[in-house]
């Protein structure tokens, strides 16, 4: 069965069909959480932020001019919302520090150490390369879907993805060497 395009789903949402928004959520929620995670560094906060992002997108959907670029627009909102979250958090922690009550950051419990390492190293990648990995692995490994979210040509996208993988391999190899 052919999946409806983002454009079709957005039009349906604008016409009042909430079910279409569920489909858009299924399509992009994991990606939005990953983008938020880049800032929050913990999954629970990333999930909360992602919910905010979808609410904000729903409220501002009429402002989306190019309906086919819903994914790209959503990622932009996610980055904006993450920056707001970070500013808020910095303000709060500075206040807490002044009051002599510094709250420690709660990290997710580590799972497989290799996976945990991978997660850490991804956070060290340049934003563009990180986003290439997020979009590729969270858009069903479809380079076409991923490159649309990033606004790149197919070849341009593969180029960034390849660079991201190579840099990631180098970072992991360096980590292994330091352990030895």
């Amino acid at each position: 069965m052919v999946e409806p395009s983002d454009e079709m789903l957005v039009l349906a949402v604008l016409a009042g069909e909430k079910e279409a928004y569920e489909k858009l959520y299924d399509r992009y929620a994991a990606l939005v959480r990953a983008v938020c995670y880049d800032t929050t560094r913990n999954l629970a906060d990333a999930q909360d932020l992602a919910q905010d992002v979808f609410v904000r997108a729903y409220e501002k959907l009429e402002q989306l001019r190019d309906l086919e670029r819903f994914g790209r627009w959503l990622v932009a909102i996610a980055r904006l919302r993450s920056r707001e979250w970070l500013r808020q958090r910095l303000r709060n922690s500075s206040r807490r520090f002044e009051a002599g009550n510094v709250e420690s950051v709660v990290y997710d419990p580590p799972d497989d150490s290799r996976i945990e390492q991978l997660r850490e190293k991804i956070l060290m990648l340049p934003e563009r390369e990180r986003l290439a990995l997020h979009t590729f692995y969270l858009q069903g490994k479809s380079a076409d879907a991923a490159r649309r979210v990033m606004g790149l040509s197919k070849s341009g996208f593969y180029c960034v993805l390849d660079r991201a993988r190579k840099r990631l391999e180098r970072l992991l190899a360096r980590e292994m060497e330091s352990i030895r």
Partner: protein
Amino acid sequence: MKTPLDEDLTVMYEAFDKNHNELRQSLIASLPDRHRRHKHVGRINQMLAFVGDTIMRSRITKLAAAAVIIIAVCLGVLHIVGGPADFSTVGWAQVVTHAAKADYVHMYYLKSRGNDFIKHFEAWYAHGKMVMRGSKGDAKYDDRKVLQGFDEQGMLMSRGPSMFAEGQGALELLTAGFLSPKNEQFNEQVPANVGDDFLIYAFDPSPKEKDWMEGIYITVGKNSLLPVQIKACHKDGDYDLIIFDYEAPEEPAEFFEPLDVGLPNGRAEVAVDGEQVEIPIANAPGLKTAIVRLRSKPPDNSDKPSFYLDVTFITDEGYRSGMLDGLRLKVDEAAQCGTGSAEGGLDKWPDGQYRNVRFSPWLRPTDKDGTYIVEIRCFLKTEKD
């Protein structure tokens, strides 16, 4: 081939699906219903909410839109011949009944703001289609299937589903129930004033509008029952005024087609699955050429033939934009797009300048099989918003 890194990445990214179904359920439950959201506001607000999206979002514009709707309603009395003897009992319901038959509307919408008197927009409804033209040359077209908005340069700025529901009359739609015969609050209303020549209906603002609106006054010709004007008065002394044009002849059907919205900046015949074609661009400072290719597309359930279009622009400096490939384009329907440099960014041009090529490609049929005219409307945006 899957590498160990690929496998680890796949596993790692699965974490972002955690609790997905619960999160989706809670999100969807928290979202307001787009239609229902409008149901509990005042009647005038309902109309505003409806028309507001098609024109502007300011409070003032919304008020004006409400007045426009009421004017449109009044047009329905155009067909009434003769009038009742006791004019003080001409209920609004009679206007409502005839409003359903209105098949042509032409009106001007003006507003007073302090010492200024401004033409805001002009609207027409005929042949089952609606056109609204703003004072800056922007326009909206609704053909009961699609609502399209164009800026003053003819660029498609928005596209969405038609405002019309299946089989819905123009005035029924525009008034969002204001003219419903079941609406006793308005339909039983009789003229507030019966003069020698005019009947004047006065409507109170809904609770939602009462803080800033004084009321809406509709003047109707006593014998013809033709609406003469609608005046929506604000408490601060400003008002919106709608005037009907009965003198001008009805616009022809072509007028309601978005064909004459600005001249294209370039056009050329392009064969489907043929060679790429260079289209010289005129009157778009900074842009010299568009290079297009039209490709066939597997048939879908669309009512019109559709194709993929690949587009690249060349600037006056000879820089190449990114190629937007695979734009889905239906015949006689515009799309709206934008692109940055070939490097993939709006400020990644060789000279480091910001450039955003905004364009609307449009596909027109020709007499030849497999050949279409590609029209390009475009401009170069050199400053960030």
